């Protein structure tokens, strides 16, 4: 019997449609603008906090929907973005450092949907409003700085080993060492190679002199660049907390670029100022002669000061700084050969190693601390004016016992695990290397435009869809209605897949959906026209349906695959907004093949299978 689908095909279609509908459902509920408050340090989220927050919001006449605690996070939902933004400023000001306050969009869907991981589509910045930065790390400066350090190091090594050289000069990316004779040059090669692995040397004889040209190896160059990029990403991570955004995006793009996205944030100059914060490091001796308790209770002894680590543990450190961040040329985590425990390897430059060896020589067996310092300008808009206050944070990030005289290379061992070592190395690098970044692209979407874009986008999808549905129903009557059902399911499936993938939905993405709606019926048009042709030739309705689907299939496949090729190329080469368009277009092509071919066939089979049909409503 023709025009009958196997049971499994029908079951599959029903299953896909049901699952699709389920995962598309959260989008109907939408999202509420919300503020999340989490306790940092010693504070807790409790009833007192809830009451305090409620009173403050009521006093400032800011309406809120609900205040709830979930997983130790206080969530306040608002009716509109305006109140959310105002409340965010208000609460951040009044709760201070003990709590961290962040704004977010939180799904309004019921809990049972959230338990099956069904969440609404992830909206791009052009739909929810916010800031987008593309930043480039100035790699020329990074490499130049490295070469400057190496030049100093080469001089120091040669002097220390009493190898006589004429000049050591940095020429662009190379370091040129001039010798009087070949013998001395030969002698110089070994210690340099041994102590600075990052450099590779070439010899050259000209103008009666013997030259050794040193240049960073390819591996070393890549490592430096990677470190510089990582450093910047780490510093950005540390700082974005300041903006009160719960879902900041910080991503590496290419070899030297970073994308930073802050949904909901508007004041781009505030962000830029905060990003310009300067981080540094200080190495200090621990004051072990005096007790920490006395210092906390009374006054710290002269020449010492109290510090804290991230957990709030107090330390008494000497005021005199051994060396600071600018004396460090690199830091990396790894495994200590002797103790087989996680360690951080640190390289210092000439000045740093001199100071370090002077101090450590006299203090073997005593503890030394590393302090991380960050000076952040905090910018707030008050009555349209910018108010800048500086906030300095100082944190002890490591305390270790000096085992030996430390100089150019040393290591911090005794760390609990590799992860701790990695974090410490990252922090040391963040405070050490200077890798300037510049903003090369910036986009800010105001909250009202974001809201407009959502409503306009949704409206054009709906109107476009209604037009097509009416047109199809008039043109193909009964079959048109079937195509319309398939088209609706197609839209549901696109939304479900976008929600499941949590791919970013942008305005061009919505355009992609609109375009797919228009093109999705194409498959049905092809099939229906074929069926009409078959009927015209005089074939029976049953046979015409069968032949129509059969013959149109390869045409549909060919046509869709070529469009898919264009969409994939767009996805691979496009950036940002274009990617959003390519994603929805590709998903739409795939889902439309399913709904327009299998979906409509299943419905039509339901009506015609096993029956004697005289005419078709087409």
């Amino acid at each position: 019997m023709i025009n009958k689908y196997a049971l499994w095909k029908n079951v599959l279609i029903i299953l896909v449609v049901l699952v699709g509908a389920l995962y598309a459902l959260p989008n109907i509920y939408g999202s509420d603008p919300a503020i999340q408050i989490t306790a940092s340090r010693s504070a807790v989220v409790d009833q007192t906090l809830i009451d305090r927050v409620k009173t403050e919001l009521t006093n400032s006449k800011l309406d809120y929907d609900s205040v709830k605690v979930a997983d130790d996070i206080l969530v306040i939902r608002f009716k509109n973005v305006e109140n959310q933004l105002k409340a965010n400023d208000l609460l951040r000001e009044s709760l201070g450092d003990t709590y961290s306050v962040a704004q977010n969009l939180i799904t309004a869907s019921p809990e049972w949907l959230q338990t099956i991981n069904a969440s609404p589509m992830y909206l791009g910045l052009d739909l929810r409003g916010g800031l987008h930065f593309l930043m480039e790390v100035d790699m020329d400066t990074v490499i130049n700085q490295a070469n400057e350090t190496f030049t100093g190091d080469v001089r120091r090594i040669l002097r220390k080993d009493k190898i006589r050289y004429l000049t050591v000069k940095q020429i662009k990316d190379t370091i040129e060492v001039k010798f009087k004779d070949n013998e001395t040059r030969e002698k110089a090669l070994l210690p340099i190679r041994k102590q600075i692995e990052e450099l590779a040397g070439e010899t050259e004889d000209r103008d009666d002199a013997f030259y050794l040209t040193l240049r960073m190896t390819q591996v070393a160059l890549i490592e430096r660049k990677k470190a510089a990029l990582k450093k910047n990403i780490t510093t950005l991570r540390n700082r974005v907390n300041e903006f009160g955004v719960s879902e900041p995006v910080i991503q590496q793009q290419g070899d030297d670029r970073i994308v930073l996205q802050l949904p909901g944030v508007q004041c781009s100059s505030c962000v830029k100022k905060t990003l310009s914060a300067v981080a540094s490091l200080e190495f200090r001796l621990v004051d072990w002669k005096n007790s920490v308790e006395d210092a906390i209770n009374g006054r710290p002894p002269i020449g010492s000061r109290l510090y804290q680590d991230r957990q709030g543990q107090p330390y008494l450190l000497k005021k005199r700084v051994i060396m600071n961040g600018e004396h460090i040329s690199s830091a990396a985590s790894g495994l200590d050969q002797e103790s087989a425990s996680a360690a951080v390897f640190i390289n210092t430059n000439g000045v740093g190693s001199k100071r370090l060896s002077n101090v450590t020589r006299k203090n073997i067996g005593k503890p030394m601390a590393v302090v991380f310092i960050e000076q952040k300008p905090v910018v707030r808009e008050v009555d349209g004016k910018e108010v800048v206050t500086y906030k300095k944070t100082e944190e002890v990030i490591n305390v270790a016992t000096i085992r030996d005289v430390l100089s150019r290379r040393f290591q911090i061992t005794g760390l609990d695990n590799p992860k701790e070592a990695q974090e410490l190395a990252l922090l040391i690098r963040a405070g050490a290397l200077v890798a300037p970044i510049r903003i090369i692209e910036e986009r800010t979407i105001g909250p009202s435009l974001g809201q407009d874009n959502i409503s306009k986008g949704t409206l054009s999808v709906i109107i476009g869809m209604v037009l097509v549905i009416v047109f199809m129903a008039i043109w193909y009557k009964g079959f048109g209605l079937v195509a319309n059902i398939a088209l609706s399911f197609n839209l549901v499936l696109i939304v479900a897949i976008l929600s499941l993938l949590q791919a970013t939905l942008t305005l061009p993405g919505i355009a992609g959906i609109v375009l797919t709606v228009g093109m999705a019926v194409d498959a049905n048009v092809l099939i229906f026209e074929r069926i009409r042709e078959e009927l015209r030739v005089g074939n029976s309705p049953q046979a015409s349906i069968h032949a129509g689907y059969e013959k149109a299939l390869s045409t549909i496949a060919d046509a869709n695959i070529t469009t898919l090729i264009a969409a994939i190329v767009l996805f691979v080469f496009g950036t940002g907004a274009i990617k959003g368009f390519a994603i929805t277009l590709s998903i739409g092509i795939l889902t439309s093949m399913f709904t327009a071919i299998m979906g409509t066939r299943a419905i039509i089979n339901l009506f015609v299978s096993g029956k004697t049909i005289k005419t078709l409503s087409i």
Partner: protein
Amino acid sequence: MQLFKKTTTFDFMAKRKLAMAFSLLLVFGSFYSLIDKGLSFGLDFTGGTLLEVNYPKSVDLENVRATLSDAGYPDANVLHYGTARDVQIRIAPPKKSSDDKKVVEGTESISDKVLIALSKKDADVEMRRQEFVGPQVGDELRDDGGLAMIYALGAILIYVILRFQWRFAFGAIFALIHDVVITLGIFSFFQFDFDLTVLAAVLAIIGYSLNDTIVVFDRIRENFRKLRKETPNSVVNIALNQTLSRTLMTSVTTLLVVAAMFSLGGEMIHAFSIALLIGIVVGTYSSVYVASSAILALNVSHEDLIQVEKEGADQDSHEL
């Protein structure tokens, strides 16, 4: 409802010389405009600063220009978009690259300065959108966009050669180039803004127009195998007539949604929808006239499709 009760018998190919002349005229006109006027590249490609603000009351552009001039931006391009309360300001990137070399530290971008200057005059001004694209990013986006187009055309060429035959592939590519050039030409002639979304639209047009062309080619291939006695000219004609109502139907539904997008989608996808509107109309025309005329001009014949005949014959006898 049916557009044509019977399969039509229009002699499309009789007019192909005329159509060819028309197409050539359009293509050369487009080239002329592209060379003479060039494209009015948007911020994405030129780099620079764009700021969109909204005032509670309608605002006189002259006042805004004066404010900007006082703030040190006499060359700013100021215009209304949407309503008289919405103002768009564009400032070209600085000529020398010295400005973009500035490090994040202390840099206050042009748009921030402009916004401060505007809010001093009128505190109720609301920032809607603010964009800055560095000059090197603009160049990169343009290069990547051009590359994407070439790769897309290349990939499609290969696919069509594999599925059909080289004459068809070239016919399809001619049609695509025809569509892209004319769309760009119209953008250049009217000096519409050419930004990243328009580039995406052009690539979507490539996909759409190809979709149309492939459907026609599919029929031509089928007819070459079935109608052994007919001349290539009439084989093509029959195929065009058979697919005519489908071609029109799909164009209409797609045009409907794009028109909805054009009138309701807001200014951010305005240029995008214009490009699609042009592309769909041109794409529909080209799949009938350019692609099919091209394969005839390349002397397509029954013999060209003999190799793949077995596969086709097999398909026809298939009963499920």
